[in-house]
Structure formats: structure tokens, C-alpha cells
């Protein structure tokens, strides 16, 4: 170690510097740079605001909704209070049934019972009508309420329904995440697998990962040579090629996807040509659509430019003299590719792959149109819960898991390659 004072020690010993009019140099500098910072801040403020309103807030909302659901707790106050006073393990007594009836009466009057029934229906399928039907008759019920309710429908004695109601009485719950990974709580509150007919999401997540991986790989294999051509062809030809690569961007996604339907369906162009050429028989037409093959083909086409462009931007910066140097040093063209060219394109491969993979995982419209039953991705389930089943909390939980997976991917990538090495163009 050197004993010459360096850094802060040395500056501290220095005499305090002042500007010409006597203000300390430090505060003058701070004032000057503060003004600059404020001006810069004012310039980015609209964008920051836009991002907060359109990005940060919705995602925050989504994350909140995935753990918070007040459909039951807000509309069943009496029962919620009974649950609060009676810890788990105590069987519902007459007071509980009385609370239930009073809440159902209110629900019927204020038309909130459907929402309550829906909430319990998430946990115990087929119970929504139990709530709505009972609510219609709740006004006529006489004590003792337990017997009265059981007379209306004996399901009111079911332990699983009461357990579900106890769970739903808490606004904050992890149950939607459990459901998103095909898990539920049993009557004792232990986490167990969902019923076999309800186990769909884990498989769907796996399929989404698998298909995204396959699509990414195909995009890489198809895109790499194209990007290389783009980077090395003479300007006029490469410009033409670039237009061809970008052409899909100028066509509506819907139009492109439907044109794939025209091409790939059973009576479509591809099958007709193959039959006409005698490659396949008329009864052996290939199922290229409404299955995973359809999803893979159409999505590869849609996402290919997102692979090509980052690759191209990296390859363009690799001078051809590297390859020449390697060849002159005795490397075959394959060795030159493997040892010299490929390693230098890794930032582009990483960026392109991550981009395509992430876009593929969240893709919705193409699998919806050409995926059939087996080519659906997790995003189609999210859309289903947003639009059809209206189970927004589950949709939010699924989406949050997807987001988590993407972040995890970034982290892994950063560990392996380094985010700084990523080049998007």
C-alpha cells in the first residue's frame, strides 16, 4: 500500500475553493447542476407520467387484485363477523346460519348475491346457483335457520362450502395463486392438489414455456442466416432483404394470421399442393392448423423479425476481417464460424432470444386463432378469465406468475450473459 494520501483525504486538506464572487465552489456547482437537473426532469415528466398511468399503475392493480378479492367479504358482513369471532374448527352454529340468511336477504335486495356466489364458485365449482336460488327464498325463511336452509338445499351442510366461505371472508388471500398452480386448501387448511379435472394451469404453463422455447429456437435457426446475409450483402440487396424482413410489420397481425389459416387448413394451399404432388393421400391431409403445429408455425412467422433485427445489429458491427484473420491463421470455415463469429454474435442471440421468448410467452391472438385446443397458451386462459369467467383475481394471479417467470428469465440471462451484453439495435 502506498502511503501517499489520495482521494477524499487529500481534497479535505485542500483549501476551500470559492468562485469569483465569493460563494463556495461546491454550492455554486450544486446550484448550477440542480437547475440543469430540474430542466431535464421537466422534459421527461410527460413520459414518466404516461408510464406511471399506463404501466406502473395497471401492473400494481393487477398484483393487488391477485391477492385481494372483496366480492365476498364486502357483501356478507354478518357472516364475516361470525367467522372472525369463531376460529377455524368450530362448526357453524345457529348464529352462523342466521348471519348467512341475513346476508343473503341483503344480497338479494341489493343484487350482490350473484357476485358472492361467483366468488365461492371459484373455490367450489357448481355452487353459484346455490347462493342465487337460496337468496331468492331467503326473505321467506323462518328460524331456526339451520333447518330452514337445509330444507331449501341440503348442500348448506357441506363442509367444503363453509370452508370456502371462511376463506373468502378474508379480503387478502393467496388462494388464487394456489389455484394458478393447480393447488387448493383442503378442509384443514393444508395445501393439496386440485381435483384432477381442474388441474390445467401447471400443464399450460409448461406448454407455454415449451412452445415458446421451440418457437425461439426455430426463430434463431431461421433468423441467423438471414441476419448474416443482411449484414454482409451489398447495400442494395441488403436493403431489399431488409424490406422483406420488415414487411410483416406493415401488415395487420390479424390479416397475417388469417392468411396462415388459408395456407395451412385441411383444405388449404399447403395440403392441396402436397396432395396434388402425390406426397400425401387425400385422406392423409396434414393437421397443420388448430393444434400446436399451427401455433408454432404462425408465431414463428410473427416473431421472426424480433430475432433478426437484434442479430443483424450485432452482426453488422463484426468486421469481415476477423473471419479472414481466422482463415489466414489456419481455421476451416466451420472453426471460424464456431470459434470466432458465433461468440461475437452472442449479445445478439441473447437479445433476440429473450425478446422472442418473452413475446411468445405473452402471445394471445395467434394461438387463439390457429391454436385449436392443444395450441392454446397461458395467455389464452388469462383472457378467458378476464372476459368469460370474470375471475379477474385468478387472471391476475396467472399474469403475475407469467411476469415473475419473465423477471426470472432476465435474472438468469443477466447471470449467464450479462444484461449489458444485450443489444437490441
Amino acid at each position, binding site marked *: 500500500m502506498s502511503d501517499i494520501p489520495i482521494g477524499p483525504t487529500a481534497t479535505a486538506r485542500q483549501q476551500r475553493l470559492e468562485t469569483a464572487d465569493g460563494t463556495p465552489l461546491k454550492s455554486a456547482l450544486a446550484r448550477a447542476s440542480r437547475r440543469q437537473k430540474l430542466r431535464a426532469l421537466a422534459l421527461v415528466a410527460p413520459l414518466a407520467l404516461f408510464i406511471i398511468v399506463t404501466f406502473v399503475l395497471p401492473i400494481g392493480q393487477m398484483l393487488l387484485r391477485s391477492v385481494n378479492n372483496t366480492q365476498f367479504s364486502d357483501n356478507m358482513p354478518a357472516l364475516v363477523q361470525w367467522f372472525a369471532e369463531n376460529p377455524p374448527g368450530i362448526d357453524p352454529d345457529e348464529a352462523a346460519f342466521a348471519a348467512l340468511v341475513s346476508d343473503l336477504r341483503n344480497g338479494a335486495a341489493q343484487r350482490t348475491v350473484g357476485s358472492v356466489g361467483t366468488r365461492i364458485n371459484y373455490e367450489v365449482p357448481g355452487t353459484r346457483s346455490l347462493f342465487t336460488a337460496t337468496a331468492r327464498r331467503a326473505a321467506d325463511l323462518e328460524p331456526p335457520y339451520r333447518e330452514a336452509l337445509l330444507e331449501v338445499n341440503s348442500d348448506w351442510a357441506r363442509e367444503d362450502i363453509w370452508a370456502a366461505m371462511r376463506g373468502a371472508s378474508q379480503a387478502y388471500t393467496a388462494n388464487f395463486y394456489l389455484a394458478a398452480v393447480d393447488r387448493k386448501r383442503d378442509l384443514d387448511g393444508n395445501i393439496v392438489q386440485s381435483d384432477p379435472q381442474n388441474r390445467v394451469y401447471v400443464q399450460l404453463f409448461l406448454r407455454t414455456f415449451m412452445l415458446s422455447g421451440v418457437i425461439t429456437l426455430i426463430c434463431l435457426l431461421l433468423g441467423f442466416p438471414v441476419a448474416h446475409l443482411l449484414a454482409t450483402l451489398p447495400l442494395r440487396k441488403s436493403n431489399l432483404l431488409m424490406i422483406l424482413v420488415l414487411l410483416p410489420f406493415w401488415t395487420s397481425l390479424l390479416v397475417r394470421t388469417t392468411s396462415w389459416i388459408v395456407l395451412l387448413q385441411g383444405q388449404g394451399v399447403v395440403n392441396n399442393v402436397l396432395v396434388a404432388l402425390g406426397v400425401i393421400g387425400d385422406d392423409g391431409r396434414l393437421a397443420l392448423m388448430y393444434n400446436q403445429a399451427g401455433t408454432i408455425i404462425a408465431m414463428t412467422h410473427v416473431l421472426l423479425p424480433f430475432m433478426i433485427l437484434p442479430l443483424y445489429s450485432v452482426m453488422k458491427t463484426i468486421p469481415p476481417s476477423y473471419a*479472414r*484473420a*481466422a*482463415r*489466414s*491463421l*489456419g*481455421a476451416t470455415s466451420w472453426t471460424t464460424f464456431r470459434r*470466432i463469429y458465433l461468440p*461475437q454474435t452472442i449479445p445478439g442471440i441473447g437479445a433476440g432470444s429473450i425478446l422472442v421468448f418473452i413475446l411468445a410467452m405473452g402471445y394471445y391472438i395467434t394461438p387463439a386463432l390457429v391454436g385449436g385446443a392443444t395450441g392454446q397458451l397461458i395467455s389464452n386462459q388469462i383472457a378467458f378469465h378476464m372476459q368469460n369467467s370474470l375471475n379477474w383475481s385468478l387472471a391476475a394471479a396467472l399474469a403475475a406468475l407469467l411476469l415473475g417467470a419473465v423477471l426470472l428469465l432476465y435474472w438468469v440471462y443477466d447471470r449467464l450473459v450479462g444484461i449489458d451484453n444485450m443489444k437490441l439495435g
Partner: protein
Amino acid sequence: MVRAGHDDGFVVFDHVQKSYDGETLVVKDLDLSIGKGEFLTMLGPSGSGKTTCLMMLAGFETATHGDIRLAGRPINHIPPHRRGIGMVFQNYALFPHMTVGENLSFPLEVRRMSRSDREAKVMRALDMVQMGQFVNRRPAQLSGGQQQRIALARALVFEPELVLMDEPLGALDKQLREHMQFEIKHLHDRLGVTVVYVTHDQGEALTMSDRIAVFNDGRIQQLAPPQVLYERPDNSFVAQFIGENNRLEGVVEQLGPDRCTVRLTNGEIIDAAPVNVRGAGERTVISIRPERVEFMPERLPPGAHTLEAEVLEFIYMGDMFRTRLRVAGSDNFVIKSRNSAGQARLRPGETLRIGWLAEDCRALDAA
């Protein structure tokens, strides 16, 4: 003529032509024979086809016509990686994702050399260019001159018999360039390797080469050792391209075997050595180096023709004086004189008589 070795046809260009577009010839009928161990420089203006020749030799471009032979073997159809030719590129082309050591080890790895041999050779090559302590650096962490040395070491580490260098010093500043010229020359002398060197810096060509091939317009204008090239240029392009040169136009009056007299445009007559003039009455350009012009009458041989000259400009350059004169209608006639004791300092407006030894003044083609 050749300092190292003799011209045994180690590298031969045999009537080589090259066209990129099928319309124009970039290299026109190149005949060139390079001896083993020779340091040959291709010198010429931009676009004259030097790099193209080098690329054909290295195997990155194919000759449109003609044969290229290496050690007697035609190599037209041998791919670059099997030619065993070392190459130094202008931008060094060091692999950025490898350390210095890995860069040097690469040619040895592809030759399937054992690890211990590789390490020994890499260290020897690095020591050769005094870069031993940089073995673990990346190229981006080196200065331009250091990268240049590594590129040199990499081209030599697998002990090729022929090394090609395409303007290897082009990106360096003047001082470093001169230093590296010396080092490259030194390495060449020590290793006895054959070097084909491309540059458009004539100073570099003159100081380093055994022979220089002056290129212009796809042809070799003259192939000769530096001294011959400078002192006895074959044609007016070479005279003009190499070094500083004074040209005067005129017509041949009398042509003898080793003397001719030339009538300049203003009617004055001077003596010259005929180089490529064919007969009396032909138009010619005479060429004379500034340092060979005499203006002290007592240093001229008796009876030599002299010319009237008017001083236009006198430039003090430290070790030299450079004087621009108006001679026979030309405003660009330059003479140089050493700053020695008693040397006259000419003043603008002064008139004097200049002359030269007939053998220093060459009558060339009028092109």
C-alpha cells in the same frame, strides 16, 4: 540485387489479372517473382490494386486469369486456411472475445498442437515483440501500438514462411510508426521470413524493403531496390511518386548512347541521361531530385549547360534549406541545400544559374 537471399521464385505471380465486375481490370497482367526471405513492398497510390494482389495471394480473392505459385505449387485452388500464410491486417483484426494469449494460441490450436507446445510458442512469440506481460489482457485493453505488436506476433507464431502485411502501421502516429518499421524490419532479419508488405507511404517502403514494386493503375511501374528506385526511376510516374522531384518538359534535340540534350519549352538546352526516350524530336519530361541541383558554379563540371533561375521562396527547415525557384517557365522547381557553415541563404527576387550532372537528370516518357 536482393539483400536477403536471391530471387528463387518463392512467390510467383504469372500473368495474373483480376476483375471484380467483369468490366474493368483492377490488376492488369501482373508478373512478379519474390525470393525466399525477401522483404518486398507493394507501393502505390490508393486504388492501384495493392490490396487486391495481397488478397489473391492470401486466398480471399480468386485471380480472374493467370497463376499464383507458392514454393513452386500453384495455389489458385487451395483455400486460405491451407496456404499457411501469416497475415497482419490494417485494423489488426485481433479477436475481441479472446485474450492476447488465446489470440496467439488460436492458430496453434487449429493445428492441433499440444498444450505445452502452444504455451511455449505463445510466450516466445510474445517475448519477441516485448509483450510477455500482456498475455491475459483483452485487445480492447491495449493501445494501438500494443495491438499492432500482438497482431504481428499472431501472424508469426505458427512460423509461416510467408507473411503478408496490408498497411499494418497505417493507424499509428508518426513516431510509433517509425519505431515499428524498425522492429518489423528487425524481426524480418532475425526470422528470415518472406514478407510482402503493402503501403502507400513511400518513406516506409524505402526504409524497410529489399525491393519495392511501384503499382499504378493495376500495373507494376517499376520493381527495384529502394536505392535504384529513387535514383534511377524508369518512368515519370515513379520519379514523381517516389521522393521529391522536379519536372521540366521539353523535346529531345540529340540522342546519344548515354547522353542526350533536351530543348526545354523556353528554348534553353540542358544535358540529361536518356532513360526511355527513343529518338530526337520526341517529347520528354526530365526529372531531377532537388538535392542534386547545383547552384554554385564551381561545383559543376566545365562545359555543363546551366539554366537561369529566379528565387521565389526560401524556406528554413532546420537541417535543410528549401528554395523554390522559377526555372524555364515552371514555378515549382525546388532545390535543397544543407544548412552547413557558409552555405548561402538565397533571397526572393535573386537570380542565379543552376545546373547538374547529366547522369542525375533523367529524360523520361512525357506521360
